[in-house]
């Protein structure tokens, strides 16, 4: 429920944040980000979705435990291309975090060696 209610405000906020960049008396100027996107056809096709993607990314961050206020600022600092990548597959992208995971791998290997009888580390402890 809470997420639904702040949604419109976030959209408004992102519109306010991006609006000044396009403010020129003649709207026909092709901006740098837009021009760069045309060099990459796939991105050009997806460009129109950037505003939606920002909202999508913000919601996913909140769902993964990020503070809602922080999530707004975090989503606002991402480029169009980054937003689209995150909106598509945020959960499966590399999330650099731990060396504890590495210890997990080592533990598994040791455990296997133990179980198949190659080592006897755990008996000695």
């Amino acid at each position, binding site marked *: 429920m809470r997420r639904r209610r702040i949604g419109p405000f976030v959209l408004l906020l992102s519109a306010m944040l991006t609006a000044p960049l396009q403010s020129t008396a003649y709207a026909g100027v092709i901006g*740098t980000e837009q021009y760069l996107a045309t060099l990459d056809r796939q991105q050009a096709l997806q460009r129109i979705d950037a505003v939606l993607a920002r909202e999508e990314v913000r919601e996913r961050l909140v769902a993964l435990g990020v*503070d809602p206020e922080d999530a707004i600022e975090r989503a606002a600092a*991402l480029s169009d291309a980054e937003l689209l990548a995150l909106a598509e597959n945020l959960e499966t992208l590399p999330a650099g*975090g*731990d060396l504890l995971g590495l210890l997990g791998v080592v533990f598994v290997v040791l455990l*296997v060696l133990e179980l198949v009888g190659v080592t006897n580390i755990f008996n000695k402890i």
Partner: protein
Amino acid sequence: MAPTNGLRWACRSLALVFLALAGCAGAPRFEAPLDSTIELRDVPFFPQTDYQCGPAALATILSYEGVPVTPDDLTAAVYIEGLRGSLQAELLAATRRHGLVPYTLERRPEALFAALESGKPVLVLQNLGFDRFPVWHYAVVVGYDAERETVLLRSGTEHRRKERLGRFLKSWRRGDYWAFVTADPANPPKSAKADRWIRALADAERVLPRTTMSSAYAAARARWPDDPLVLYASAVHDGANGRWEDSARGYLALLAIEPRHAAARNNLANMLAEGGCIESALREAKLALATIDASSPIREAIEDTVASMERLAGENAEEPPHCAALSAVPPPAAERS
């Protein structure tokens, strides 16, 4: 856990490990990247706590650029509890929020060592596990020992971790050779390439203050005075900030180098119109339309420009005198339709 369950679990894990090993054989040997030893000793160190290698590595490179932050300050900006880690894109975004430009390196070892040699610590993504069983980790490369062929890192809880070159390159390759450095917006890294730097600036534009961006583009122009993309982005920035004449001159310089640059000519038309040079604007807009491919995604924007210039041309007659000095090199005659 019952013993049989444990055994089954262990066997499955073992199978997984072997599968992963099969997937990562044959890393290419990379010959001595640098002839001499280099170490950036002044790079600070923040030992990481649980899962916090993202904030720790980022604090390391930001502090080195003079931003006073600790990993704790960055946790709210990059850490994701649900993933127990930090995403690459968010490290870049947080860098922008601290007033610096993140510059991602080309995905090859030479780029990393060139950045290091130019005095930049490099934040890298390593996969310490296997392709199919990844253990993602961020660390900061601060040096290379040519004699021992070891890479020196601030990593995890180790202030000066030494990794053999081959071993480091394997783990980094499993992270798809992803790496970035940070730089002051007005001081692009010595090893930077013009187009990559402009992309980095454009991505930071929505976050950094306008005055900062203005000096950033001025610095980029000083560094790469003839680069088309630098001229383009800089002119767009001038135009968006009310400096139509500077902007127009930027596009003129670009069109002198690339007369077929339709996007630049389209934007020039808009700037000329802003300066009251409607007749010239209409001429440039039509030339832009004549040089653009039918299938180009920017064709529609150019058609819109032509339409609005035609509307304006009906209202205004005389061009102010300053317009005469702002005419562009036309596109080659053969390529006009």
